[in-house]
């Protein structure tokens, strides 16, 4: 999206309820700033994120999608994040093949105690996507206003 001639990316962040969503809350509690381009969707576990959700986000004009879950071994549901790791490795490589650069997608492990890591990750990811510019490859033009 262009705002006053400046590119502002649209970032969708899927956060698991137990670690990363709580980590995002902690970033808020500690008033750690990160760009408002990041919009968080709460899911029970990172393994709830269906690849179609990510495809849909890119189709609808998202410029980057980040998935945050518990650290490996710390999943509230014991093994969900291991599935996430494998599924996203597959999906991201397919997206790369379709022309969605690797830098537009990311999986990050953020625990409930890592508010600072959450904010730092989002700052870094937004800067990375901003540098790439708009996502045009997968955007469904029929969805554009």
């Amino acid at each position, binding site marked *: 999206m262009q705002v006053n001639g400046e590119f502002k990316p*649209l970032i*969708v962040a899927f956060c698991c*309820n*137990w*670690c990363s*969503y*709580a980590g*995002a*809350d902690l*970033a*808020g*509690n500690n*008033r*750690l*700033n*990160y760009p*408002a381009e990041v*919009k*968080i*969707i*709460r*899911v*029970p*576990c990172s*393994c*709830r*994120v*269906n*690849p*179609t*959700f990510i495809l*849909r*986000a890119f189709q*609808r*004009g*998202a410029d980057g999608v980040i998935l945050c879950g*518990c650290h490996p*071994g*710390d*999943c*509230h*549901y*014991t*093994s*969900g994040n291991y*599935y996430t790791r494998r*599924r996203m490795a597959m999906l991201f490589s397919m997206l790369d093949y379709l022309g969605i650069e690797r830098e537009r997608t990311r999986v990050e492990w953020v*625990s*409930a*105690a*890592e508010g600072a890591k959450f*904010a730092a990750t989002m700052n870094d990811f937004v800067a990375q996507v901003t540098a790439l510019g708009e996502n045009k490859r997968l955007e469904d033009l029929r969805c554009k206003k």
Partner: protein
Amino acid sequence: MQRIGVFVCWCGSNIAGTVDVKAVAEALSHEPGVVFSTDYQYMCSQAGQDMIKASVAEHHLTGIVVCSCSPRMHEATFRKTATAAGLNPYMVEIANIREQCSWVHKDMPIGTEKAIILGKAAVAKVHLNAPLTPGESPVTKRALVIGGGIAGIQTALDIADAGFKVDIVEKKPTIGGKMAQLDKTFPTLDCAACILTPKMVDVAQHENVRIFSYSEVSEVKGFVGNFDVTIKKHARFVKEDLCTGCGACVDKCPMKKVPNEFNLGMDNRPAIYIPFAQAVPKVATIDPAHCNMLKNGKCGLCARVCTAGAIDYTQQDEYVQEKYGAIVVATGFNPISMDKFDEFAYNQSKDVITSLEFERLTNAAGPTAGKLLRPSDGAHPHTLVFVQCVGSRCTACAEKGKEYCSKICCMYTAKHAMLVRDKYPDVDVYVFYIDVRTPGKNFDEFYRRAVEEYGVKYIKGTVGKVVPENGVLKVQASDLLNNKQLHIDADMVVLAAAIEPDRSARPLATMLTASMDTNDFFTEAHPKLRPVESPTAGVFLSGACQGPKDIPETVSQAGAAASKVIGLLAKDKLMGNPCVASSNEAMCNGCSSCANVCPYGAITYEDKEFRMPDRTVALRRVAKVNPAVCQGCGCCTVACPSGAMDLNGFKNDQILAEVDAICK
């Protein structure tokens, strides 16, 4: 079509300071299905909740969107409000415009714009919400306490006194934990053993308490109210029910050169041992690493002298299965290893010791029977140097120590210094500190006494190096207030080592799926409002496993954890989580993809009859989710190739609707 009400909270100035709440309410009022939209100063207050209830009745609302703080904070509150208003509690969605918007963005237009988008996503989701009814599950009226230190003992006693059964699992041969090793306790200087050992006896004799000593939790399955736990009882090669604790075997054991871990290796114990005189259970344990009989079959002396016939060299590890309704973690702490702190010469000189070792040295039941003697030569020391914050508050050296304050060191060092000066007025005592932190009842008075009455020399500054030279320890330090370098010839140096969570805590957290912070302390469900509960339902925290704590704090937290457990066990039935998976039988082809990824084994298959278009009946295998076992992670929904599996509360179309709303 839903009739949705939007309620935007100001949270005083917390939200309204960065988000134009009126503009948010206005913008969301134009969303499809929204029939009512308003803002209020404190939506969670009684007046705010009453307003929601009145609006539901007035506008015949079927769904509610509250734009407020995190759902982790007040989702339950607003669900109760919805129930009181006659709605299904799961018709409520929260847009988190505080923690994830107003608190992290500074600019009003940007914050407002984001809040509107988050509100739109919540409206889009609530459109697709369906009423959900939680199932019920029974509660096993027995609690498990992991760790038998003062935290575990107090928690177990409080639960048992309320009439519920409790099991304590302790990995050491005796309960008592760190407190059993202490000499005196601050700030009252009463002796640790005098206040702890009666509690150890009480808990052992309590009719509702069982103690599994020398045991560990090896597996945890299930969920709140219904945990299935496997406890591994290590073979102690002594029959617990027969051993009388007479100690004849301990006296006769020929292998007497085993470092005594209870005295932190400052003296030796035999291969068969009772950790200390007041151990509970008072039962001998054979250390298989050092016992000649177990190592090469030569000896057997203890079996010959045991009149009770309790020695059993063939004993094997035993696994006990038990069901519990609640689990309390009380795994405690340990001082960190001093290996990385070469500058203090801990590994070069026996006269450089940690504070816990000093504790044993001044304890009447310790290796020197309470006499202050230099470990290297047994001589009476004349100059003692205490170093504070060894490994604590180590921001510059995180790879060596810990970033946090260990909290108890200032007070126990004041205690040690005071006790030394009290018993041996001829000994010079120096304490090097960064800050002296004494926030506790009678704590600062205690520290002032050490300085003013007992003449302990407190010096603000750090010790740079300790060099053992000709039997003395050359201490090089700085005195920051006088801005000069000090050189002190000390006889002993005592290091206030930082404390860290016990090593068993990390694997245990994985088993319990309880979260930990970056320092491996267990995370509490809410740092202020739910300090003794872990985010995992049915798992509670007691003592230093949650953060550094002194004894009074540990005991109060232990009691608090017990009261939470009692509150849980007092219920006959628990309401489950209705946000569980369910399969659409018409779409399911019984491929087993979902069952293969389910971590709980909640999915089974059944053959079901389907009427086909040609009026015949076909038998087809379809997935069936057991809602009592499903925990609602949603892993199966992604694995399902036909899209038959979906997760209540987080349905595919709900999440897609959120994505669409955000990307519009």
